[in-house]
């Protein structure tokens, strides 16, 4: 009965101040919602080990991450065999190579379609604990030399391309124009190792290699239950030393700059190494937001207790038991945190749904979404929420209860007047304000720098005209266009491939809506990653002290379609198809920086490698083209120097293309498909999108995370502004009588204002010093993968502190002014 009275009373108090109630619930919901959302996101994407229906985590063994290309690096099959033979800690192990494949139907003349393929070891399905829904999995015999080509289809391929044909198993389909028997269909959602849509047995030569090769393979593994990841990493590090020592000179390109090669890494982390620091930053930011929310709610409730001192004193005078008083204080917190927690679930659930939609959009074109990138609220998250709610109730309820119990109730009852805020309370207020300042500073600086950098990258001049341009990837079936390397047919085979591209270009350029066509290995705005080159007569003593440039393969006459121009010299020509003189075109930046006298044409350069054997022949510079930027402007792997090799001499089986069109984009896409059908309908075109969309692709994840940071930033501003105002108002309110005394003693308004503003400025100095230092440290953690421009630093490190200064000054000025404007007699008798 008595507790019912307390509950009623708490409800009445909350109802009496609806704005306070709504504000505190909102703050709790935001803090907990963001925490829940980020925990679920980071847990699904990064931290929660990939178990795949078993107890032990899946790990990846691969080569050290390549920071210059921001990409994972594969391992030689020979070294994987060594690992398999020498490391007893491994329980299960398999290797694979990521690939794409063109799937076709032999029985009719249907168009082929590109899918993400993986050439993989037969044990993959057993390893993942998933069985096919139709047919069988791969078996060891499928790898043998001369075995019938077989394939296991993914559910979506079966559903969409083969229209859920129930008799698909044992039928023959075309895989890169080779007849291949379908042996099984996997269940929906299965895409292990990452984005696979079809599984093809890897060649036996990779499973039991007898010598080193240029193979580029990855692996999946599980450790024995009694072996920890750290112990295994140490074992692998020891083996790595042996492997590195045994590497012949012509294979030392596999090593990184620190002689590193093999590494073990948690499976999920391996796929996002380049974004890992950003995810960690996101986690830090959200923890700070949660702290801000806790401080705000705690402060609001503390302020409320200060208002209720008299009531508490009366209760104590009436003999309230201590536990009843604590319970009374806790009831409000329980209500606020519980309702806030419930709203947080809705908020987080909505955010996760939105994230799934963003992920689907992100990977719509390239279909490369890792299969575990499907986020939802799982049991762990709900447990975390319950624990967080309990922690918040304790923090936000017990602190005010303690404050209420520790007050001098006799003094309050006798005479509420005290000259000044207590020392402890004053110090607590200062700590609260400083905490709010530095926490909001960190969140806002990081959010602003990231947003500004992301925005600048989007607005950066990549040196190409993207208007009325579409891009696509074109792939030829290798079986129809083989290159017989190191034979007399090599050049002819190469030219056969390139002839297809030029034929396609001719057909397209004859169409009325097509202006120009370009083929390039990676179009400007994508394909970052540089290699060292040396200039004849100016080679550095060590290979990696030479300058470096991005290297691309380009078709003849590619420049016009991209809005680029030949500035000096000439374009590639048919005369350059020659074994005697290898030609190269450089961009304007290389010409300006290394040939400032305008004498680049005719000079010779070549690629500089770690091992002398792999240095290519000399290439003669025949032209200089306008600058372009390969890769996003915000990635450290992007480079302003670019060199172009002629497509005719390389003959890739796939190539990226850009089409300059007039009229509508849809018509241009139709024209492309028509032209391909006209030239050779075995070729497959995919990743068709506008040039602007292409440029946004490399940073699409960072852009999405930036939006989360923006949300965090907006929330931080709201929390900081309301929190600092509440702390300042509470602090000023507690000092109302002191202000009255000072006024009575003759202090002018300005003197009183100065007193509070000086204190606020001092808190600003401390808070901003800590905040800016911490922000710089966090931002520095991101610079291993991101280029942060000076403008972003300026906005972040000057603009945000300025904003916080204004915010704190206003938040201090307004409540202080309000009290100062009271008549001294009112201030002296303020209750």
């Amino acid at each position, binding site marked *: 009965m008595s507790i019912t009275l307390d509950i009623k009373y708490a409800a009445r108090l909350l109802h009496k101040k609806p704005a306070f109630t709504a504000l505190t619930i909102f703050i709790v919901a935001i803090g907990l919602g963001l925490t829940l959302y980020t925990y679920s996101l980071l847990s699904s994407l990064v931290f929660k080990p990939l178990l795949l229906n078993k107890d032990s985590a899946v790990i990846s063994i691969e080569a050290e991450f390549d920071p210059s290309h921001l990409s994972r690096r594969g391992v030689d099959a020979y070294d994987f065999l060594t690992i398999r033979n020498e490391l007893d800690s491994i329980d299960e192990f398999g290797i694979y190579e990521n690939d794409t494949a063109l799937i076709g139907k032999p029985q009719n003349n249907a168009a082929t379609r590109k899918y993400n393929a993986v050439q993989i070891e037969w044990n993959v399905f057993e390893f993942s604990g998933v069985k096919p829904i139709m047919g069988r999995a791969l078996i060891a015999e499928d790898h043998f030399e001369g075995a019938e080509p077989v394939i296991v289809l993914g559910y979506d391929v079966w559903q969409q391309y083969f229209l859920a044909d129930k008799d698909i198993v044992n039928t023959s389909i075309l895989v890169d124009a080779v007849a291949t028997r379908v042996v099984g269909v996997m269940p929906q959602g299965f895409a292990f190792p990452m984005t696979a849509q079809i599984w093809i047995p890897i060649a036996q030569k990779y499973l039991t290699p007898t010598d080193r090769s240029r193979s580029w393979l990855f692996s999946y593994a599980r450790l024995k239950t009694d072996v920890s990841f750290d112990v295994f990493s140490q074992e692998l590090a020891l083996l790595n030393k042996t492997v590195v020592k045994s590497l012949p000179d012509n294979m030392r390109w596999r090593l990184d700059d620190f002689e590193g090669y093999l590494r073990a890494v948690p499976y999920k982390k391996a796929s996002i190494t380049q974004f890992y620091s950003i995810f960690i930053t996101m986690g830090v930011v959200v923890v700070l937001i949660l702290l801000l929310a806790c401080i705000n709610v705690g402060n609001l409730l503390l302020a409320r207790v200060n208002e209720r001192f008299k009531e508490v004193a009366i209760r104590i005078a009436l003999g309230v038991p201590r536990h009843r008083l604590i319970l009374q204080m806790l009831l409000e917190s329980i209500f606020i945190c519980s309702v806030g927690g419930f709203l947080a679930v809705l908020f987080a659930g909505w955010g996760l749904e939105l994230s799934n939609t963003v992920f689907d959009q992100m990977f719509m074109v390239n279909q490369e979404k890792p299969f575990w990138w499907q986020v939802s609220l799982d049991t762990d998250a709900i447990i975390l929420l319950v624990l967080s709610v309990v922690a918040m109730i304790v923090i936000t309820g017990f602190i005010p209860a303690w404050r209420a119990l520790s007050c001098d109730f006799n003094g309050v009852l006798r005479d509420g007047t005290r*000259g000044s805020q207590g020392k402890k309370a004053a110090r607590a207020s200062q700590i609260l304000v400083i905490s709010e300042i530095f926490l909001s500073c960190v969140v806002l600086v990081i959010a602003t720098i990231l947003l500004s950098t992301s925005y600048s990258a989007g607005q950066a001049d990549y040196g190409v005209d993207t208007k009325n341009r579409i891009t696509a990837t074109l792939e030829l079936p290798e079986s129809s266009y083989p290159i017989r390397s190191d034979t007399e047919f090599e050049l002819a085979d190469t030219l056969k491939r390139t002839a297809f591209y030029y034929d396609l270009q001719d057909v397209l350029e004859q169409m009325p809506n097509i202006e120009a066509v370009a083929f390039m290995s990676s179009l400007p705005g994508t394909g970052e990653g540089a290699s060292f080159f040396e200039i004849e007569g100016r080679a550095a003593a060590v290979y990696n002290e030479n300058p470096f440039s991005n290297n691309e393969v380009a078709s003849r006459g590619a420049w016009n379609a991209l809005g680029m121009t030949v500035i000096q010299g000439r374009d590639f020509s048919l005369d350059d198809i020659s074994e005697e003189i290898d030609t190269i075109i450089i961009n304007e930046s290389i010409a300006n920086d290394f040939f400032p006298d305008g004498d680049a044409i005719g000079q010779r350069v070549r690629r500089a490698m770690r091992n002398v054997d792999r240095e290519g022949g000399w290439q003669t510079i025949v032209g200089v083209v306008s600058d372009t930027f390969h890769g996003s402007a915000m990635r450290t792997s992007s480079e302003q120097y670019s060199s172009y090799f002629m497509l005719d001499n390389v003959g890739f089986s796939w190539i990226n293309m850009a089409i300059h069109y007039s009229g509508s984009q849809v018509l241009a896409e139709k024209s492309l498909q028509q032209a391909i059908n006209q030239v050779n309908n075995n070729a497959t075109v995919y990743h068709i999108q506008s040039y602007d969309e292409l440029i946004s692709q490399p940073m699409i994840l960072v852009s999405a995370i930036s939006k989360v940071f923006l949300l965090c930033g907006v929330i931080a501003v709201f929390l900081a502004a309301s929190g600092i105002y509440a702390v300042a108002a509470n602090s000023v309110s507690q000092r109302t009588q002191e202000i009255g005394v000072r006024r009575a003693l*003759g202090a002018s308004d300005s003197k009183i204002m100065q007193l509070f503003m000086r204190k606020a400025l001092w808190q600003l100095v401390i808070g901003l010093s800590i905040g800016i230092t911490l922000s710089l440290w966090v931002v520095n953690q991101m610079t291993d993968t991101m280029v942060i421009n000076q403008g972003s630093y300026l906005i972040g490190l000057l603009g945000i502190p300025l904003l916080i200064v204004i915010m704190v000054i206003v938040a201090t000025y307004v409540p202080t002014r309000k009290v100062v404007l009271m008549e001294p007699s009112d201030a002296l008798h303020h209750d």
Partner: protein
Amino acid sequence: MNNNNTENSTQALVSLKDITKVFFTDDVETHAINNINLSINKGEYLSISGPSGCGKSTLLSLLGLLDTSSSGSYTLAGHNVSDLNRDERSAIRNKEIGFIFQAFNLISDLTVAENIELPLTYRSDFDATQRAAMVNAALDKVDMLHRAHHFPSQLSGGQQQRVAVARAISAKPAIILADEPTGNLDSKNAQIVMALLDQLHQEGATICMVTHDPRSAARAERMIEVFDGKIVADQLTQAPTAIAV
């Protein structure tokens, strides 16, 4: 009722004419002070008494420029202070008025000496040395010099009030306004504080004290009684100090 002192004194330090203070609460209009006329001469020791809620504290607030009247005029030391702005009123309070409050109202984060120095720091005519001398003199007068560097929380109630008296007199104000100065004290400490006020009066200070303790009121040389916002009695007493003067 003897109103001679309130009307025609040429020596008046304080002169209130037709002062009214009206409070509005919702639709209710309360006349806390109702058309009061009052003069206080330099060197006078005056007590204001009356039942709770009669308006005596409001009257003291108006006298101390802690509040503004709704109508009427107020002259202090020959200057009309009715229409001053906030800062001008602050300056007058600082120079001409010393306050002693019932609840002492010392600032707990400042030491005894700093509390006393505080009003002196609000004006520019004293340097640090002068201020220190004035603080020491004031503390000496209330016999609290030995506690100069203590904080208020380390003092008894009586000691705190003596510090408050020292603060009130440190700048040698024209008038000392005391609002129930013994209200929070035991009889022994109350006696010490009242003796201090007597001593200040004997040294020439003008004191106006609100009290409803008849014994304290009796120590003043002139006693005013307020009821329902009006002065209902204004008479000289046979106070020992008055007799002495």
